[in-house]
């Protein structure tokens, strides 16, 4: 890549964005990464990352308080956009977390909690009870071909930590899935938007590859 690209990592007060920004810089040293809550900076950036940890109520509450919702909806329409973890869940219509929270409704669907007492269908013994949060390295099955999956092997492991997962209304945006007791959607693709439930910034080389792919993606 010859020209530099500006990546805005949206800072809406939800946790530490240091690792996301560092990993983006590490993935492509031509990228100019800014961590910002400034609406103009976000609107002017070439591409946008919506990260996040914490609960959905706090997440939507902070976006509202900082008056970022319209800006996020706008940039999600017209430039390469990457949602990570809560930043993926926030794209959906509604989450069942915190007794129900309305989200950005950019991708139709719900966010649901893993049921208690999940069983591992692969293990036939007492050890089959699965823990919540789903924490650690799980395999991601790429459901579609997509520029963000480039150079990433099928069923590559990525790092997850979450208790809620997205259930899109229709199967079209599902870009990747994993199995935790049952199959769950862990990557979404819709036009210029890509989103992952796993944390590329904590997924070592595979995560850096996905970030490099995002930085070089024109959103089509």
């Amino acid at each position: 890549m010859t020209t530099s690209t500006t990546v805005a990592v949206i800072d809406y007060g939800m946790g530490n964005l240091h690792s996301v920004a560092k990993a983006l810089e590490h993935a492509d040293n031509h990228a100019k990464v800014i961590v910002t809550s400034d609406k103009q900076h976000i609107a002017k950036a070439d591409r946008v990352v919506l990260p996040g940890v914490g609960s959905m109520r706090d997440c939507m509450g902070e976006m509202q308080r900082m008056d970022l919702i319209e800006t996020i909806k706008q940039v999600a329409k017209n430039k390469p956009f990457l949602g990570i973890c809560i930043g993926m869940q926030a794209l959906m219509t509604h989450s069942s977390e915190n007794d129900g929270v309305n989200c950005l409704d950019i991708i139709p669907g719900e966010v649901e909690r893993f049921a208690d007492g999940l069983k591992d269908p692969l293990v036939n013994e007492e050890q089959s009870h699965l823990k919540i949060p789903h924490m650690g390295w799980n395999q991601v099955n790429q459901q579609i071909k997509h520029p963000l999956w480039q150079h990433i092997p099928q069923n590559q492991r990525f790092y997850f930590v979450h208790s809620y997962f997205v259930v899109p209304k229709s199967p079209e945006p599902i870009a990747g899935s994993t199995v935790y007791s049952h199959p769950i959607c862990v990557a979404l693709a819709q036009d210029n938007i890509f989103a992952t439930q796993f944390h590329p910034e904590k997924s070592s080389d595979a995560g850096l590859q996905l970030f490099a792919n995002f930085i070089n993606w024109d959103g089509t």
Partner: protein
Amino acid sequence: MALAKRIIPCLDVDKGRVVKGVQFVDIRDAGDPVEVARRYNNEGADEITFLDITATHEGRDTIVHVVEQVAGEIFIPLTVGGGIRCVEDVRMMLNAGADKVAINSAAVAKPEFVCEAAEKFGNQCIVVAIDAKQVNDGSNDQPPRWEIFTHGGRKATGIDAIEWSKKMVSYGAGELLVTSMDNDGVKNGFDLPLTRAISDSVAVPVIASGGVGNLEHLAEGVIKGHADAVLAASIFHFAEYSINEAKRHMAEQGIEMRL
């Protein structure tokens, strides 16, 4: 397809330097935590834990710089434990680039601190470290019993380890790091009944710690101890085994691993 069990090497850091001897032939400075973390990352560590054992308050800033440096170039989850006593300590470590903090004696002294930290930063980054000793081995018609000990295993609290684990999860711990004070440093393996008793009674992941002397111990921690992750220090520091070797051994025992 399944979630992999994790191997977590632990580095004891004193005033910004790795202690307890790290002996890698190809490392220039075996006391440099950044270099050791880099090495573990290259060997396939699933996460890295730093345990800050710096006794003086003044020396404690150094761990922040270590975390910053490591987080700037190694992109796997990082946990920092040791001396985390207030919300400000948690914030400082997370801002430096840690993904999780391990809270130990402060949780015993003031359990509400765990609630406060989990509420503020999310359960996913709050690990409660539980140091337990067996006080009854079950040979006298009583069920086996473990108690929480503080001050490096010197001070009994009278708190039952299983009850404490459940309480810490209800207070918001997203993960438990269970160390057997009987086995720590002894190299005879984890306290498997303790690990299993805790892992089977809570919904969150459990990391087994204390006592690893060989690769079979790591596998036992998962198979018999029902641990979701295994933590070890000295077997990796002294380069007796590489992390990759450990992972391959565990995979051969039928354990799902990230290879």
